[in-house]
């Protein structure tokens, strides 16, 4: 299982970076309240925490991209506060942020010049990281995302940082490139440089980190040495409680098979984006899970079904009739609606909960007239109650908590009585309790004959909500697993395109 890496470096007692009591408020939202992090020279230090725990915020504060609301940061024992990333860079702290930071309209050479990065070492690192055909004249915008991430890293490495901060550097990378990153990070630490490493992948943590700091709700809740068996501890700390095996929540209540007639949605030989040839069916009253590794084209699939993107080949049938969507409005008319993974893509952040939920009602031209306010209030209130949305800050959705925001995006379609909801990683960045509520809600909907297509990046969710799991790999559906056998291990194998193991795990 987990093993600690090689021989320990001589441990100096003086940390190179020491942050204590760091806090950051965004209005009413406390992204960080009391975070601390101490990194030793030559150490690879993992920063862990659930989505929204505040990892990225901490990185931004440490590197001067965001001003803290409180706390103290010491570099080599000296208290510092960086006013800009430039200042942090000069002090030897170089980040790779979670989002690409290349200037989109500049070519690579200019991007290097902008950060005064020497070209030779940069090119060296790029090759080292496994990218061989890079043109310095290419405009950053035109470079694929994964390569942009590699360039970000190479640029940071070329600056010869004392402390390198990597925020989910590997998340968007294919496995081979991710491995290269791990190699490179190891060598950094061997050379006596420190690395702060953020990732949700335990394999990577185990492979190279010395210690881990765990954040929960903006607070440091533990610092652990990476050793065998620490994984459980970390997860416990991250979630704040021992994860109960919440098996069999409701998925016994399947009604799929009993519904006669054509499937609610049938996808045949669909090609869109990275997807080459995808076929599956979604029955009435079914929650079908979609499982795929990052970047397999699942987002394109959902967008195509929601009418937000045109497929290049294949057909979509709804209730047995072929449909063609030129606009999400067409899909909505056919009863298909998307709940995107990124809440900021779905919400009118400055508008009220009520307006957000009622938005689809006003969209069609014939509804541009006066609003039936009483009806609207009734519909919206019903939806709010059904999802138990905390509406204390309902005048502006941006003041709601993330979980409540996510509920609003779902409530919208429940109020509109949309028959098929396409949920794309709806529980991303949501606390455990809210997650449960969402599972329950979706099962309830299925029980009433609604259909749900459910993509999740957290594999154990499949067994909480889904009736089946459709696994996509390499542009195709490689497997459809019944929920009984769709545990994490089986799904992971399938997601990597490996064949099913014949016998069920003991």
């Amino acid at each position: 299982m987990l093993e600690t890496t090689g021989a320990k470096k001589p441990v100096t007692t003086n940390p190179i970076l020491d942050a204590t009591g760091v806090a950051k408020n965004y209005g009413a939202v406390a992204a960080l309240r009391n975070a601390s992090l101490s990194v030793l020279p030559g150490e690879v230090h993992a920063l862990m925490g659930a989505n929204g725990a505040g990892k990225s915020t901490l990185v931004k504060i440490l590197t001067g991209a965001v001003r803290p609301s409180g706390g103290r940061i010491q570099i080599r024992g000296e208290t510092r506060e960086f006013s800009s990333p430039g200042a942090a860079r000069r002090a030897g702290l170089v980040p790779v942020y979670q989002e690409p930071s290349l200037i989109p309209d500049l070519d690579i050479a200019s991007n290097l010049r902008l950060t005064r990065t020497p070209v030779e070492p940069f090119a060296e690192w790029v090759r080292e990281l496994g990218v061989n055909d890079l043109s310095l004249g290419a405009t950053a915008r035109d470079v694929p995302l994964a390569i942009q991430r590699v360039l970000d890293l190479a640029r940071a490495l070329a600056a010869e940082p004392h402390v390198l901060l990597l925020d989910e550097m590997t998340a968007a990378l294919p496995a081979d490139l991710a491995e290269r990153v791990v190699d490179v990070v190891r060598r950094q630490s061997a050379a006596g440089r420190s690395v702060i490493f953020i990732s949700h992948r335990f394999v990577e943590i185990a492979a190279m980190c010395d210690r881990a700091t765990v954040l929960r709700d903006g607070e440091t809740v533990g610092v652990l040495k990476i050793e065998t068996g620490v994984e459980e501890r970390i997860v416990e700390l991250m979630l704040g409680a021992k994860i109960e095996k919440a098996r069999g929540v409701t998925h016994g209540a399947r009604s799929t098979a009993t519904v006669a007639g054509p499937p609610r949605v049938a996808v045949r030989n669909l090609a869109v984006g990275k997807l080459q040839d995808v076929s599956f069916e979604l029955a009435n009253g079914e929650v079908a899970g979609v499982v795929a590794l990052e970047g397999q084209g699942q987002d394109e699939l959902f967008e195509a079904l929601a009418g937000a993107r045109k497929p290049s080949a294949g057909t979509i049938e709804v209730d047995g009739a072929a449909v063609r969507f030129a606009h999400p409005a067409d899909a909505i008319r056919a009863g298909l609606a998307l709940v995107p993974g990124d809440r900021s893509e779905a919400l009118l952040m400055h508008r009220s909960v009520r307006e957000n939920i009622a938005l689809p009602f006003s969209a069609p031209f014939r509804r541009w007239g006066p609003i039936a306010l009483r009806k609207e209030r009734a519909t919206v209130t019903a939806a709010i109650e059904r999802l138990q949305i905390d509406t204390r800050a309902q005048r502006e959705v941006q003041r709601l908590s993330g979980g409540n925001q996510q509920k609003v995006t779902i409530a919208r379609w429940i109020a509109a009585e949309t028959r098929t909801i396409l949920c794309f990683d709806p529980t991303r960045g949501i606390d455990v309790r809210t997650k449960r509520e969402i599972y329950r809600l979706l099962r309830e909907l299925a029980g009433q004959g609604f259909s749900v297509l459910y993509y999740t990046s957290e594999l154990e969710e499949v067994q909480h909500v889904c009736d089946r799991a459709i696994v996509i790999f390499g542009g195709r559906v490689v497997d459809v697993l019944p929920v009984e056998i769709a545990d994490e291990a089986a799904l992971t194998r399938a997601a990597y395109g490996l064949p099913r193991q014949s016998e069920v795990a003991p």
Partner: protein
Amino acid sequence: MIRLIRRNAWVAGLCVLFILLAVTTKLIQPDYGAGDFGSLMRAVLPYAFAVAAQTVVVIAGGIDLSVAAMMAVTSVTAAAMMNGASESHALFVVPFVLALGLCLGALNGFLIVWTRVPDIVVTLSTLFVFQGVALLILDAPGGGAAEWLKGLVVGTVPIPFLPESVTAWIPKALIVLVICLAVVWIPLRRSQLGLSIYAIGSSELAAFRSGVSVARTKIAAYAIGGLFAAMGGLSLTLSTGIGAPIPGPYLLASVAAVVLGGVALGGGKGGLLGPIIAVIVLRLVRTDLTLLAVDPNATTIIEGLIMVIVVMLGAFLAMRGRTR
């Protein structure tokens, strides 16, 4: 790469348009000669500087509604200072006015950074302020200009190794324009500041994270805009010999030419060459219509139509490119 080609294609397209118009001009008026081309370039001067000012700011992701008002301030300042003064006094006036433009522009940038009010609103406010300042300096068109300054844009200069038949087609006004723009623009393009200006225009966040001082860069971009506007103001004074406190039509013209020149509103893209050629094209259109004795107001229609159609076409092509 594709982007590079496309950008150059835009400029090339403008050049073709210019050549077509030039040929048309010669067809309409066979007597059209070097002297007339000189007139064209003199008419181009203030517009070209106005559009240069706007271009820098737009590339930095902003917009400057006070361009014409800054031109008015600098123009009347120059005219008032040179009024009745000795010829050599102008030697002092020119750098002073350029510095003034730089300061006015920097003030715009500073207010945008400091108040966090959107740039459109800030420069809308300073548009009124600068207009007022111009009126306080001269409440009516007037003042004067040194003769040698006026002479700066009239006629031609002999250029070594070039026959007169060639230099006749290189009027001083063109030379002044090219030198003034090049002296600022070429070093800027190559400098870290120039890069930073493109960077903040392309993505303020990414630029900030790349260590660019967004505030300082923005102020600098507006300041350079102000410098170009001051050149425009000076060019007005030295072509009319007076300063006029009410701003001319340079704001709308500058925005139009920036867009026609292939610089995207929103920033981060484009160069100076396209907008300058666009401005020349627009002036030549007016000349041609005058030669044809067309109502000058029809020129307004045609300028508007060119703008609308070209921009729609550009947007349409961009859209096609995106869906591919």
